[in-house]
């Protein structure tokens, strides 16, 4: 192994792209180096459910051949990991569940297809909370994911396998999905950059549905610049997803070159109320000062219904999930109970054995809120509150370009700390859920450390404002090096 390829894992995506195009190393060398690293470190992190060694090596060889032939897309030869919620043809897609322990998808998700078409190389599938239901990546049937900054702690969730893998430099970029904060919160807890685009910006086709009106695919990377590169490939209308929006995709990479001067940054009064760790608050305030020092104008904004976002979310999301997960019935695919006595027994045992406790809790909650006699009081009321929350953001964005605050109330918590208390766990997403309810884009960027654990700055923009959001994050990262910090055991 050459001297340059020994530290390939240390390079972020954009740098690797430059190295590949200069011919400093081949896609095969890069892939081999990272596969070796995964082999070495995955045991301590449990970030991967599946490592696709053979497929990755074959794809790397194709990428090198394409490059030699003067072909290949913008991501040619660049490694990536997909959250195990994205369907990948001929490869296991478990969604972190026993229900899909043996499920091999017959097709590729649109996100997977677009990234592969651009030349990205899939190294494997990342671990996650079961069916993306969780904020700690502990509800996976395949065991909890560990945080590279402290393996006794959670990397956040539900995209914790992706955040841990990127933080530990096992892969430069990973896909994730965000229903209530599942990209941004794990990014914050692992010192990585996590982008959740506007609802409808990226196709949901082939992404196993949790809560269809909230789910959105995005990325976890080492920098906003890398996220811009990937989003340009993933975004855009997909005729297979009616909720994807038919609107041009800007050149996000070109958009990074903007300035913070005159950008109106809204600081949410309610974000700094009780509940936010004071050291995290200090780190976030310091980040805001950095933005201000570059000419950004800080304004206080009000999101009066913010405290209703968690309860609203925990009606809407379970309602949709209770219906979305009905297809897992043991009839056509997934786990099927042995020797069922009759149809009811087949259903009850297949689902009883296949789903974990958190998934069952949400299916039951969702079934309840949609039931005759309860629908108006819960589901309908939640939809009304959801509208109020959207209106709050709309009003706020009349005066500001971006809303800034903490991504999560605390740094990474210990594994097992919150598993017995679902409500405390749910409150971990208090700052991120609003963007999902309103369909807004959000990004989390590293902005400091508390007791050696990373803290995230959360930026939310108006619909389809990914370009300016990425620009703000990128400009911030030009002035800080929090995002370049690497956990000691994984340098």
């Amino acid at each position, binding site marked *: 192994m050459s001297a340059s390829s020994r530290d390939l894992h240390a390079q972020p995506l954009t740098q690797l792209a430059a190295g590949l195009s200069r011919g400093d190393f081949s896609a095969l060398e890069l892939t081999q180096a990272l596969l070796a690293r995964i082999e070495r470190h995955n045991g301590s992190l449990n970030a991967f459910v599946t490592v696709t060694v053979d497929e990755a090596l074959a794809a790397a060889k194709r990428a090198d051949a394409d490059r030699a032939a003067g072909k290949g897309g913008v991501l040619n030869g660049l490694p990536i990991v997909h959250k195990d919620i*994205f*369907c990948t043809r001929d490869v296991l*897609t478990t*969604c972190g569940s026993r229900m*899909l322990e043996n*499920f091999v*998808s*017959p*097709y590729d*998700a649109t996100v997977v297809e677009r990234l592969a078409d651009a030349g990205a190389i899939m190294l494997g599938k990342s671990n996650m909370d079961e069916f993306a239901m969780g904020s700690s990546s502990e509800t996976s049937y395949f065991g909890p994911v560990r945080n590279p900054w402290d393996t006794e702690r959670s990397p956040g969730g539900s995209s914790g396998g992706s955040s841990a893998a990127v933080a530990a430099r096992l892969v430069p970029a990973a896909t994730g999905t965000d229903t209530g904060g599942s990209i941004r919160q794990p990014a914050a807890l692992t010192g990585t950059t996590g982008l959740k685009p506007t609802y409808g910006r990226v196709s*949901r*086709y*082939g*992404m*196993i*549905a949790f*809560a*269809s*009106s909230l789910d959105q695919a995005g990325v976890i990377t080492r920098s906003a610049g890398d996220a811009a590169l990937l989003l340009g490939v993933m975004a855009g209308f997909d*005729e*297979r*997803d*009616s*909720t994807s929006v038919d609107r041009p995709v800007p050149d996000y990479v070109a958009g990074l070159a903007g300035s913070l001067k005159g950008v109106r940054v809204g600081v949410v009064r309610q974000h700094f109320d009780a509940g936010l760790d004071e050291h995290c608050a200090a780190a976030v305030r310091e980040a805001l000062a950095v933005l201000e020092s570059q000419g950004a104008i800080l304004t206080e904004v009000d999101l009066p219904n913010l405290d209703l976002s968690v309860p609203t979310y925990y009606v809407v999301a379970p*309602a*949709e999930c*209770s*219906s979305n*997960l*009905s*297809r*897992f*019935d043991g*009839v*056509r*695919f997934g786990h099927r109970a042995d020797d069922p006595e009759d*149809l009811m027994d087949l*259903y009850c045992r297949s689902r009883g054995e296949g789903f974990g406790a958190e998934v069952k809790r949400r299916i039951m909650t969702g*079934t309840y809120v*949609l*039931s*005759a006699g309860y*629908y108006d009081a819960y*589901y309908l009321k939640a939809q009304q509150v959801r509208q109020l929350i959207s209106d709050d953001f709309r009003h706020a964005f009349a005066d500001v370009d971006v809303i800034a605050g903490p991504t999560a109330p605390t740094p990474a918590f210990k594994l097992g700390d919150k598993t017995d208390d679902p409500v405390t766990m749910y409150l971990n997403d208090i700052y991120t859920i609003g963007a999902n309810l309103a369909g807004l884009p959000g990004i989390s960027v590293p902005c400091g450390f508390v007791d050696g654990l990373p803290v995230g700055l959360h930026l939310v923009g108006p619909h389809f404002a990914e370009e300016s959001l990425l620009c703000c994050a990128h400009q911030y990262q030009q002035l800080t090096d929090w995002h370049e910090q690497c956990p000691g055991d994984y340098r």
Partner: protein
Amino acid sequence: MNAAWEVVIGLEIHTQLATRSKIFSGAPTAYGAEPNTQACLVDLGYPGVLPVLNEEVIRMACKFGLAVNATIAKRSIFARKNYFYPDLPKGYQISQLELPIVEHGELFIKDADGNDKRIGITRAHLEEDAGKSVHERFDRHSGIDLNRAGTPLLEIVSEPDLRSAKEAIQYMRKIHTIVRYLGISDGNMQEGSFRCDANVSVRPRGQQELGTRSELKNLNSFRFVEKAINFEVKRQIEILEDGGKVVQETRLYDSDRDETRAMRSKEEANDYRYFPDPDLLPVAISDDYIETVRKSLPELPDAKQQRFVGDYALKPGDAAILTANRLLADYFEEAARHSDAEVRLIANWIIGDLSAAMNRDGIDIGDCRIAAADLAGLVDRIHDNTISGKIAKEVFEAMWAGEGTADEVIETKGLRQITDSAAIETIVDKVIAAHPNQAADYKAGKNKLIGFFVGEVMKETGGKANPAQVNDVLRSKLGKLADQ
């Protein structure tokens, strides 16, 4: 029917829309393929797949709505109806609950006195069909065939305005005619493209409040609808007259035993937990779109019937028969265009011999063995006296058997009518000479014997003599005998 009780019926008709692909996927909808060969990943409810609305179903639903004078919703939404069943792949059916695409329609039937009676159409909504469970072919196992899963259905719900099984059938036939006129459904009941559930209740005549209803399922022929309703009405009246109470429940009609059987009670009914489907956007329909669809509507059965009465001077009953099927009406008009004969004669032939032959051989008008122009050719030969009406039936059968046009058959079989007066006179003379006794009786005043002589002459000519001419010649010659 018991005069003390009033019957109240509302129908829910499921009509399969004749799209090439399914309502939310690109898989084909053709009937009768090998199990599970016409179901794609979306129809199978695979993880991660999403429904995409086939816009053709919107056009078809709009057509129907306009044809029954209904309101087309500017904004309609799809909802999920949640329940578990092995042939329901997603664990929910995509349907419409609030904001259906069609509301507040109507059509008119004839009441017992022959007056127009308005039947309200509450709504018509779009939904996907489920697959089929196959229980017969596998030992102790059930098979699932998902070919039908995702086939588009339009569910047409009437107001409880129907007052008898006869009215229900009339209404159902009318809907059946309309959907086929519009070309939005083949209406094939054997294949399940047109099926019906009936909500049936009875109440003491004069009472405003509705009685407790039962919902009859699985009514896949007009005859079964009538029989099931009549059975159910009788059952409910018997319960009430015995002092009992009708239980709200779903009942299945068993055509083998001609009875309805309880399937599930209200308490056992599913809570379907409907909610708007977040995978599909609301359907927005513009006024322009509605106008474009309106312009594309064909002439509808009621209008066509009136026109037939007005333009062709047909009897209303005949016009109704001819317009019950758009292809039959087209056939009639084409034949009328090609014929010099009286249009009523054409109508009689279509309603009479042609329909009888089609029924006998189980053939639809679309596959009719005699082209409209050829039927006109036959009627014209009657009209111009080339053949008699009686011979025409023979020519018709030959045409039906594929032996050629009327002219060809008449030529080949030598069926041309004898109109040569000299020839007829010769035969008449021969017949009179051969039956001196009858001639004598006629002479003595038994005028009815003219029929006997006509018959004999026709026998002699193989039916080819012109009957009017034979009559004239006979009367003249026998008359002369009488004068002598």
